[in-house]
């Protein structure tokens, strides 16, 4: 760091010293000095004559602040710079100040020439002035200070008001929160309503009653909470004496009907006398000391469930809008909870009854299923045994008397044998159908084409010696019960082979198309076909569209196909035309890709 010494420093110092010297030069004498203190004082000052109250001398600041010229001032009295309404006080004050020489006269209102009022703090001192008994006055303008104070006080006032408001909201929220918590604590709404009513007393009422509309339309007084527990009985007694009259215009019935809050803030004793039916009533009315009543509906989801009655008695308070909002809010929450509890209860009951029904139905179905199983077991075992016996002994009989049998007898025995065999097949097919419906599905992934080819190979006996063109297109891998799907193709391909028998050259096609939802498989032939009119009959049990002499079969095959495909969640249908072939379709739902 570099210091500039020498000339620069000297110059500065001498300049300062010179200035100070010039001020002191101007103030030469003591009198002159004091004159400056008066004339140049930034606060308005003047001297007035204590007897005439005329201004004797004013300083520059007075001229500046009050707007009067020095000459005007000197023609005025100190009364002239005050608003008329303050003159009485001035006179009083002047009388008092005569006693004490130095006076802090306090705050006054002064008026400038333009009529503007401003506050000043006045201090005065008695001085002799030009032979007169004068008073030196210093008037300190307080306008800026007062405005600042006023601003501060307004701010403080406002802050206080906001704080009170906030506290009120806080209290209300805390109250509602407590109410909500209480309400959600248990599902026993009666218990909860009592607790909530308890919260309302004494915060927003001296006593409180809760009434609920019962299922039969009557009103039940659920709870009465009184700051004085002894009064509770009287409140109940009152309700007994004045039973609920749904038709009444005002009071509880009115509120329940309109769903709107009712406030009666002024209940004079005469009204009680008028309403009371007898002396006893009046006595109870007076004991309860009803002064103000507010009835708030308990409404939720557009349903009025009851009402909360809030009463001010001995505390002599009135219900305000604030109370009304709070009470309505409380009632809304309570009602909502009651409704929710009711809905919850109903839902639970409904669920329970549904579950019960499902269980009942399930066990019914299980019983039916067991019966079916027993039935089919019995069919399987007991129905076949006699058939076997008929067939066996017919055969043995034939052999036993072979030599004595004529052609006719042999033919009859042949019929017996054929019929029995047919019946055996029928029973087997029926059992298969029944089993397909009941059997547990075992899903696995396999190539449909493999299944189709294996089925075709197994039919060599039926297809031997026939001219059949097989058109098997690419078939997808599916997820299904392999044995069941095999049975489907045994039926469909078997039918195709059977119904193309009259054709010199049979064409049997198997194709599949896949989309997002399902795989559609079609087995088509150029056989005898069928009339579309009967396409629905095809899938029914024992439904045949061709005479059995022409085409053998029990009429169960397609029923079985439909049952199997249905169990896989798919559909079946057929298209055909007489003598123009048939096409049978089935679908398998797409396997969900994970």
């Amino acid at each position, binding site marked *: 760091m570099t210091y500039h010494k020498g000339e620069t420093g000297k110059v500065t110092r001498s300049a300062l010293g010179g200035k100070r010297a010039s001020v002191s030069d101007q103030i030469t004498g003591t009198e002159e000095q004091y004159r400056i203190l008066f004339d140049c004082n930034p606060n308005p000052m003047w001297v007035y004559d204590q007897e005439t109250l005329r201004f004797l001398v004013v300083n520059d600041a007075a001229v500046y602040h009050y707007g009067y010229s020095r000459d005007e001032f000197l023609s005025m009295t100190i009364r002239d710079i005050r608003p008329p309404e303050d003159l009485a006080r001035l006179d009083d004050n002047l009388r008092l100040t005569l006693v004490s020489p130095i006076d802090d006269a306090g705050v006054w209102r002064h008026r400038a020439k333009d009529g503007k009022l401003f506050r000043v703090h006045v201090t005065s001192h008695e001085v002799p002035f030009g032979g007169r008994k004068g008073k030196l006055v210093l008037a300190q303008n307080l306008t800026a200070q007062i405005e600042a104070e006023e601003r501060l006080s307004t701010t403080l006032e406002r802050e206080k008001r906001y704080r009170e408001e906030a506290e009120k909201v806080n209290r209300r929220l805390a109250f509602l929160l407590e109410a909500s918590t209480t309400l959600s604590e248990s599902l026993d709404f009666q218990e909860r309503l009592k607790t909530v009513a308890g919260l309302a007393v004494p915060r927003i009422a001296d006593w409180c009653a809760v009434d609920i509309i019962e299922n039969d339309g009557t009103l039940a007084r659920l709870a009465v909470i009184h700051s004085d527990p002894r009064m509770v009985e009287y409140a109940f007694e009152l309700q007994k004496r004045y039973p609920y009259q749904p038709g009444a215009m005002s009071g509880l019935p009115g509120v329940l009907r309109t769903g709107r809050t009712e406030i009666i803030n002024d209940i004079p004793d005469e009204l009680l006398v008028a309403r009371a039916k007898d002396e006893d009533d009046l006595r109870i009315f007076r004991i309860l000391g009803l002064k103000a009543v507010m009835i708030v509906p308990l409404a939720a989801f557009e349903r009025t469930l009851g009402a909360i009655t809030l009463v001010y008695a001995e505390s002599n308070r009135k219900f305000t809008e604030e109370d009304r909002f709070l009470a309505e809010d409380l009632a809304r929450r309570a009602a909502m909870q009651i409704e929710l509890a009711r809905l919850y209860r109903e839902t639970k009951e409904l669920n329970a009854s549904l579950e019960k029904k499902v269980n009942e139905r399930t066990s019914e179905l299980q019983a039916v299923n067991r019966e079916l199983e027993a039935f089919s*077991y019995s069919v*399987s075992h007991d129905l076949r045994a006699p058939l076997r016996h008929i067939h066996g*002994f017919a055969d043995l009989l034939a052999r036993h008397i072979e030599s004595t049998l004529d052609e006719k007898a042999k033919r009859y025995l042949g019929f017996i044998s054929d019929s029995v*065999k047919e019946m055996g097949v029928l029973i087997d097919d029926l059992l298969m159908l029944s089993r397909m419906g009941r059997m547990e599905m075992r899903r696995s992934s396999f190539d449909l084409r493999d299944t189709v080819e294996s089925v075709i190979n197994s039919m060599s006996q039926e297809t031997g010696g026939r001219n059949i063109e097989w058109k098997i297109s690419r078939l997808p891998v599916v997820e299904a019960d392999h044995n069941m799907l095999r049975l489907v193709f045994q039926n469909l391909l078997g039918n195709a082979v059977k119904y193309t028998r009259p054709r010199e050259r049979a064409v049997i096609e198997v194709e599949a198309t896949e989309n997002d939802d399902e795989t559609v498989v079609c087995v088509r032939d150029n056989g005898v076909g069928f009339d579309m009119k009967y396409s629905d009959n095809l899938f029914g049990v024992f439904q045949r569209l061709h005479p059995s002499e022409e085409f053998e079969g029990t009429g169960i095959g397609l029923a079985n196909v439909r049952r199997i495909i249905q169990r896989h969640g798919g559909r079946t249908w057929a298209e055909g035309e007489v003598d123009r072939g048939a096409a049978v379709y089935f679908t398998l739902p797409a396997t969900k890709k994970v």
Partner: protein
Amino acid sequence: MRMDSIRSILLAEDNQMDVELTLEALGQHIFANDVVVVGDGAEALDYLRRNGKYADRQEGNPAVVLLDLKMPKVDGLKVLKEIKGDVSLRTIPVVVLTSSREEKDLVKSYQLGVNAYVVKPVDFHDFVEAVSKLDVFWAIVNEPPPARVNAG
């Protein structure tokens, strides 16, 4: 084929007509020289364990047991369970011969250790065929375990 290898067959069947047909079927193919017929499961077990009226029968197990499932008193599955649970009986081949095509009977029989399960066909010729195959296989071709294993 040695004649001494043909030993007795125990046929447990309650239906008299089925008994006759089965005997007929057996008789058409081999010498049904020693077929013991019992009418219910309890009697079958008595025979095998030499109890009751069979207390005095000659010692030794039959070459094969042909068992109907649906029988009075003790049913076929129960008899099968007893045989396969008895160390001195469990080596006897047991063939269930039944009208039932029910899968659960089949599964249950195999679970209990049946050696063969035959559904009696309605057609008598098929029946003869099925029975004769069994008979030939179990009574003649199949070599029983040595006697000491039988005993212990």
